[in-house]
Structure formats: structure tokens, C-alpha cells
């Protein structure tokens, strides 16, 4: 039970606004310092980027981020099972649920490789849900006998919309029966999160694929191509924040859509945005590191900081803010800031790394 307690404590800390504020750039979240800051400051010119070093550092960042989600999801499965046997409270379950979603948030930016192969972007977080797929998928699951609802292998065969965080949120924040479906869904998600981690960092995983970039590599012909992939991921993550996470609830001035805000039921909308932005900052500061000149890197991180400030200045949840003209403009000004961040990132970091964005999952409509 000690492990469970520690886990719950960590979850509560992660889910608290205080923790959300404390992760400013600096030492790595695990307390260690990056031993390989890249080239010394002072203008690496185009063509002098050490793509191999950038890759090594960035893979460290990714491994930490994917590892954090894997741990959080495993913890959630454990807490869910303990809740359904009466060992832990629903509040504790909600705290671990929040911690898991915030651990997922940075990974939303990396919709290539293992996340794409496993379909995790949709199975972990089926959003936006334009046609109530989550409700329908969940209803079908809840019609099954209890022992099947609790079985991750049964959930594996269900609709993707019933397999992840939005389905858990609907169980936790509506009148639907929480147990035992919460056990089956969180158990399935724990398995998937581990699968994604293994496909990245296990033997012959995507990380190895990136490390062995070369003419015969099926994906990365050069180390620079992996840099391009990471660079595209940053741009993609910012698009997701501006266009989906803010744009969908904003709608138009005449008609906003409060319930299109991600995770509006649990009120995690704003913290998810903080967490996704922090994940990208992490990649830029400790992954791209010295291969982006100091002044430019600092400038980009400064704009990230301004975006966090604007998000905090909204003063209410995005779901509530979009409806009231007095607060709506604050959401719009955050959206403007993200757009500015994106263009400054493209103006400074892209040319310095000698890469431009490639195609991403954001290219459809």
C-alpha cells in the first residue's frame, strides 16, 4: 500500500495548480542536470548543426516524457482497481486521472512513429469528438456483463472512443456507473501506454531507428531528417493548441462552443494546455539546446512564458471564458500569442537548424 500512497501523493501534486506553475525552465524535472548542452553559445551557422547530439539529447527528453505517461497510466490502473474494491476514494482516483491526462498532454505533439502505429493519439485521447462517439462507445461497453467491462482485453476490441481518457472522464464526471468499467478502460490504457513506450525505447524501437539514420534506413535517411521530424512536432503541437484546444471552443463571436473545450467536464482544459506547452519547451531547451543559438532559444522560451501568463490571466476555465465577451478576448489573445510563437519559431529556429516543417496529422481538416 506504500507504493499506492506515494503514487497518490505524486498525483495530487501533479494535478495541483502549484505544480503546474513550478516547472519553469531550469534543472530537469527529475532533479538532474543536462550534461550535454550542445555547442557552446555563439552562432552555429546553417550546416554546422550537430544533428546527432541533438538527437541524443532529444531522445532523452522524449524517453522521460513517454516514461512519465507510462508510469501515470500504470498508476491509474492500480488506483482504479483499488477504488472499485473500496480501498481508495473517488477523489484520489480523480487526482490520478488528472495526473495521467497531464502526463499524456506533451505526447499529443508527437503524432508520428509509435503513436501513429498504435493509433494512440485517438485511443488515449479521442478528441475532438464531433459526433458523440465517446458516449456511444461507452454505452455499448456498459451494456456488457460486469466481468467483461473490467477486462482490458474486451475493451481492446471496443470502439477507440471508449478506450481512453475522455471515456474515463465521462465515467468520473457524469452519473454513469464508474465501476467496473473504469478498471477495464484504465487497464487497457496502461497496456497501450507501455506498448507505446516499448515501441519507442524498447529493442529495435523507433529511437533505435532514429539513431541508425542512414541511406538504408527505411524512415530516416539522415540524422537531419529526425531533426526535421522533431521540428515539425513542435509546430504541430502549437497548431493543436491554437486551432483545436482554443479554436474549437472559441467558435465565432456569434456562437462559441463551451462543451467543445477539451476535458471541460473535469475542468482540466487549461492545465492540459500548460502541460503541452511545457513539453515543447522541454524539448527545445534540453533537446534542441545549444544547437539553437542562446539568444534565439531564450527568446522562444520567453514567448512560451508569455503564453503561460496569458493562459493564467484568463481567470476562469476556457470553457466558461469563451461565452463571456469580457473574458473571451483573453482566450483570443492567448491564441494570438501561440500564433506569434509559431511564426517566431519558424523564423528563428527553423533556419538555424536548417529544416522546415514536413507533413503532419494537422494537414487534413
Amino acid at each position, binding site marked *: 500500500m506504500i507504493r499506492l500512497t506515494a503514487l497518490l501523493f505524486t498525483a495530487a501534486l501533479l494535478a495541483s495548480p502549484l505544480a503546474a506553475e513550478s516547472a519553469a525552465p531550469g534543472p530537469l524535472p527529475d532533479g538532474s542536470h543536462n550534461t550535454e548542452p550542445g555547442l557552446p553559445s555563439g552562432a552555429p551557422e546553417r550546416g554546422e548543426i550537430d544533428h546527432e547530439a541533438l538527437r541524443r539529447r532529444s531522445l532523452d527528453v522524449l524517453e522521460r516524457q513517454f516514461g512519465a505517461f507510462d508510469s501515470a497510466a500504470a498508476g491509474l490502473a492500480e488506483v482504479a482497481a483499488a477504488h472499485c474494491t473500496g480501498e481508495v476514494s473517488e477523489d484520489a482516483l480523480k487526482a490520478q486521472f488528472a495526473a495521467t491526462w497531464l502526463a499524456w498532454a506533451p505526447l499529443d505533439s508527437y503524432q508520428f512513429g509509435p503513436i501513429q502505429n498504435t493509433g494512440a493519439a485517438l485511443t488515449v485521447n479521442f478528441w475532438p469528438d464531433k459526433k458523440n462517439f465517446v*458516449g456511444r462507445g461507452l454505452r455499448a461497453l456498459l451494456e456488457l456483463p460486469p466481468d467483461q467491462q473490467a477486462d482490458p482485453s474486451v475493451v481492446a476490441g471496443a470502439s477507440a472512443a471508449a478506450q481512453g481518457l475522455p471515456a474515463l472522464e465521462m465515467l468520473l464526471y457524469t452519473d454513469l456507473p464508474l465501476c467496473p468499467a473504469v478498471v477495464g478502460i484504465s487497464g487497457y490504457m496502461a497496456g497501450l501506454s507501455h506498448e507505446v513506450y516499448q515501441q519507442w525505447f524498447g529493442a529495435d524501437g523507433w529511437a533505435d531507428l532514429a539513431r541508425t539514420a542512414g541511406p538504408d534506413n527505411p524512415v530516416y535517411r539522415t540524422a537531419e531528417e529526425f531533426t526535421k521530424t522533431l521540428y515539425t512536432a513542435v509546430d504541430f503541437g502549437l497548431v493543436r493548441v491554437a486551432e483545436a484546444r482554443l479554436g474549437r471552443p472559441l467558435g465565432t463571436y456569434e456562437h462559441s462552443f463551451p462543451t467543445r473545450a477539451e476535458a471541460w467536464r473535469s475542468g482540466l482544459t487549461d492545465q492540459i494546455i500548460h502541460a503541452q506547452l511545457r513539453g515543447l519547451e522541454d524539448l527545445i531547451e534540453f533537446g534542441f539546446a545549444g544547437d539553437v543559438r542562446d539568444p534565439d532559444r531564450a527568446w522562444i522560451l520567453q514567448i512560451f512564458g508569455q503564453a503561460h501568463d496569458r493562459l493564467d490571466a484568463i481567470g476562469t476555465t476556457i470553457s466558461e471564458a469563451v461565452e463571456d465577451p469580457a473574458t473571451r478576448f483573453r482566450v483570443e489573445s492567448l491564441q494570438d500569442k501561440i500564433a506569434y510563437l509559431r511564426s517566431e519559431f519558424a523564423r528563428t529556429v527553423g533556419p538555424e537548424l536548417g529544416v522546415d516543417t514536413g*507533413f503532419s496529422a494537422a494537414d487534413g481538416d
Partner: protein
Amino acid sequence: MPRPTLRLAALLLSAAPLATAAHAADPAAVVANYADIAHAGFEDSLIRARELNAAVDALIAAPSDATLDAARAAWIAARVPYQQTEVFRFGNPVVDDWEGKVNAWPLDEGLIDYIDPMLGANDENPYSVVNVIANPTFEISGTTVDATEITPALLESLHEIDGIEANVATGYHAIEFLLWGQDLNGTGPGAGARPASDFDPANCTGGNCDRRVAYLKAATDLLISDLEDIVAAWGEGGQGRADVTADPLQGMVMAFTGMGSLSYGELAGERMKLGVLLHDPEEEQDCFSDNTHASHFFDGVGIRNVYTGSYTRIDGSIVEGPSLQDVVASADADLATNLLSDLDASVAALGGLVASAEAGTAYDQLLGMGNPEGNALVQTAIDALVAQTRNIERAVDVIGLDGVGIEGSDSLDAPNAVFQ
């Protein structure tokens, strides 16, 4: 019914030029040919839409199984050229702004006509069961809408009403729903089965046949006028043509952006992967007619057309000229060939969906929860579409175009020497 067949696929593939550069790689000529192919594709779409309109007139004049079948066949035939134009959408603002009028999807069809409320009602959309055909007046956001006369203008005003994308009142899929009705077979065999008597005011089934007829006619007329607009946009002096030819480098960025964006984010992602993950039979683009296999296939053919600079028109004639492939080949012959192989592979994989449908297993059945082989067949096509975007990106790099994938990119300031 003139269903697209694999023989047709083979024909299309053999009509394309060989991998060797047959034309000089002059960017201005490449984008001019690109615009010619766009114009021809949209013109073919217009021709087929007019044929569809004639078939709809015949259905209205004498509703019967035969006239309904003929109208359905005309709709399926109309999709063949249209889907090949989808590659012009992403990256071309004129097309992208216009496209939603004719090809918006997915739709809450209960806005238009009667549905099975267990299948199609959407809690997120208060208008998902408005049923315009049954209701001459109804309320939208507190305002009463007068729909006593169903006209193209009325349908335009209802399209994506209240900012909800699923409120699709116009275009191919609205017409498809009217001709077929809801597919109530889930992931089992069978498409929508609307009876011809739904269009027969004298022996009306489904209620309000006169209004259903009016809706079908208005939607078909509107499709024609919308297609006329886009044909004009790609003609001499049109905005679509001007956008890609004014600056040939920018034009080539648009062409590659269209190829990659349709391959990856749109077709592989939004239209295919989502359906496999949801195992939902309504997550297929042509869900009423079960024509999705063909729509996806001709999307793939269209991507290949743009690269090879060759389009086989519906009358069998060929529009061809200097191509993106020629430009890539002049910089890196191996890459040019590899990208062509990728595109051949995705067209072949999408052809697998066509073969499955022709053998009796429709696309929606492939999505079924207990059908791992079917799921895998769709996944193979997804993988091929994703894979080809890597060589599309490399092609952009090798010919020195920056900015692909970025909307409104201004990063064209370092054109490679190959263009000088």
C-alpha cells in the same frame, strides 16, 4: 452500374508517362500543366454532374427502381473525376475555401430527411434531427427559418449552419443520402435502400415526397453551379490558375502540399484510420452508397496524376505535360523513381479496397470489430499513404523548395539553383 474496376486502374497506370524525364523541367511549364489538369478534372466533374442532373430529372419524371438505379449510377460516375481533383484542395486556398460546399463530410443527415433516430442523432448538434424535408418551418438559434420553398439559396443558407460542420445541407453527400438513404446494415453487407417511391408524390413513402423531390433537384442544381465556379477559377484568368502560375516555385509548393496533405492528414488519418479505430460503419466517406472504396482509390490516383503530370479524362483523352516528377528527376533521379514507386504502391493498396468491394465485401464491412483481416487491408493502404509523404518531403527538399506543409508560407527566399 459503371463501378470503377481494377481494369480501369490498370489503364490509368499505364497511361502515365514512364519514370524517365520526357519533358524539360521548366517550373513555369510544370505549374501550367498542373493548372490544366485541375481545369480538366473539374470540367469532367461538371460534365458528370450535369449527367447526374439529367438522371435526377428522369427519376423525378417517372420514379421507379430503374430510374433510381440510373441516378445512383450517375452519382457514382460523377465521383470518379471529382475525387481525382481532391489533390488540388490542400495548398490551394481557392479550392479549399470552396470545397466544403460540394464535398463536406461527415454529416448529420437528420438535418435533411427522416432517419432512424438510433442511428444518426447527435447530442452535440441540436439540429441533427431537424428534418428540413418534413418541416416547412423550424427554429435555428431562436430564429424561425422559412423553408416552405426548397431552393438552392435555402440550402446554401442551411449549410454548416450555426458553425456546426456536421450540418451538411449541400453537395455530393447530401445528394448521396437522398438517393440511397441511411445504410442500416452496420458492418454487415448492404448499402442504403431508399425506395423509389420516396420520390413519388402519387404513391409517396417516407412522407413529403414533393419536398424531397424539390430538395434533390435544388441540391443537384447547386452542385452544378458550384462546379461552374471552380471550373472558371482554373480557366484562363481564373484565381486558382493565377495562384499557382504567378510564381512557379510557390505553385510547386502548393502542388506538393496538396499531395502530402491529402495523403497523410486527410485520407490516411481523418478518413481511414479513424474508421478502423472506431470500427464504426458510418465512419466511411460514402456511407450511404458504400462507394468509399472508389472514392479513396481515385483520391490516390489524383495524387499520382499531379506527380506524373498526366490525367486521363472521362472521354479517354489525356492531359499531360512537364511534371513535378521531371523536376525531381533532374535533381535526383533515384528519388524521382522511388516516389513514383511509393505512389504506385498506394494506388495498388487502395486498389485492394476496390477489389474487396467488387468481390462483395464493402469498405464498411472491412472496418468491423471482428474483422482483423479487413482492418489490415485498410491499414495497408494507410501505411502506404503515410510512407509516400516521406519521399514527398524529400522531393521538396531536393528541389530546394522550403515551406511545404505550412499554410501561407513565405519561406521561398532560398530557391535552389536548379530553378535559376
